[in-house]
């Protein structure tokens, strides 16, 4: 499992690469706009750094995973998760 430090605010599911990138972009926009206070900007910067780390971790996954889904299998969950 992926280290879960950048879990979505709503809960447990780790962010996908795309979600992390989107969130990072919106945080940068918030900070750049100057509309958030300095403490808030620093806090977002720290969260942003976690997102950068999360993205790099996803990208650095070197091992290719190939799951299999057979036509007859009725419960797709089991055969996808390795």
């Amino acid at each position, binding site marked *: 499992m992926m280290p879960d430090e950048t879990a979505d605010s709503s809960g447990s599911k780790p962010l*996908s*690469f795309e979600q992390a990138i989107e969130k990072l972009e919106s945080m940068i926009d918030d*900070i750049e706009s100057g509309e958030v206070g300095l403490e808030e900007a620093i806090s977002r910067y720290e969260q942003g750094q976690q997102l950068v780390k999360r993205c790099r971790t996803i990208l650095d996954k070197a091992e*290719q995973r190939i799951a299999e889904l057979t036509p007859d299998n009725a419960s797709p969950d089991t055969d*996808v998760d390795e």
Partner: protein
Amino acid sequence: MPRLFDDPPPRRTEDAKPKSGDAMPVADLVGRIKRTLNTHLPGKLRVVGEISNLSDRNHWFFSLKDESAAIRCVMFASAARQVRFPVRDGLEVVATGRVDVFPAQGQVQFYVDRLEPVGQGALEQRLRAMIDELRGLGHFDPEHKRPLPAIPRRIAVVTSRSAAALQDVIDTARRRWAGCELVLCDVRVQGDAAAPQIAAMIDRLSRDHEQLGIDAILLTRGGGSIEDLWAFNERAVADALYRCEVPVVAAIGHETDVTVAELVADVRCATPTQAAMTLVPDRETLSQQVDQLSDRLGLALRRRAQQARDRLRAAERHTAVSRPDKLLHGPGERLVQASARLATLLPRVTKANRDRLDALARHLDAVGPQRVLERGYTYTTDSNGKVLRSAKEGQAATSLTTVFANGQVVSIPTDRPHADAEGSATKRLVPPPPAKRRRVKRKRKQDDGPGLFGG
């Protein structure tokens, strides 16, 4: 058959030798064959066979043959133009037409009105018909195409486990970004079972894609004949792809083959490798994107901090903070400033009033005696400029200055004793106010000089 010989005798009986007396001319024979064929064969026949020795310049000439027989065929240009599929040697066709004899060669020929393909030709025709139908239904509409995910987490690869295409996809995906997971969905890609399996798999992926974490589908198969690829032209597959909620990239057969599945898919690729490249993002590109965002994040915070510093500095420079003593001097300064303004303002106001007064005075002068003088009146003063109001005053004066509108004349009074008579004469000439004399002019000429300067 004996009736053949009962027919009328040949025309050239005179020259004919006795041996040939019972022989018939070729034309008769051919004519009889023609009539027999026309009588005993239906006017419309359908014949199945393989085309050979095709000559299709204007009218088409070819043979229809099978394992044991062949017949020459003619298709006139008007009929040949109606043929909608490529005709070539070896193609199996059903020909519709009639049998007749071409007398000049005595040849029995099949005159073809219509050609239809069978076998592969029939498949091609079915494919074209299907494409036309699905296009009409909007299955290929660009508006229906779903955009591909920029960074798919999981891609379902729908193909046969044994297909060479699968290995191409796996290799390409690994080379670009191993972090993108592949899910092999093993289906038959050839034969009767193929189409239902593919359709069922697409439907299932569409239904369960969220649960499975599938962001895109890659449907692929290597090259083959039209029969081999036929499953991808089946309606069931086309419909499943059309209603699929997950974006589908398809690469089926060689680049030159077009299947219905590829036309319905959201993106068509020439090869399995190209399909994998289209779906799997390149790690290097993603990495650069993350680096750039990381840089922007740092820069944004530095800018934000600088902005806070600038505000602090501006606040420090503010008088209230830098020179609190000035706050006390403030009210006094205002008073000094106000009195200074007042000091400059007051003279300006009085001067303006004085100027106005002068202007009025000048105006008054202008409308004074001048107007009256312009109407022909004059008035007379003594040498001191005092206006003379009676003859008596004039007689007493040493010199008289008569003022006209455009100048003045100085004269010396001479006949003082007749002053009264003169006075009345003058009165006649010169109306009321100041006294004036005609004679004055003349007198001035007589004794000029000193009088001018009013002695």
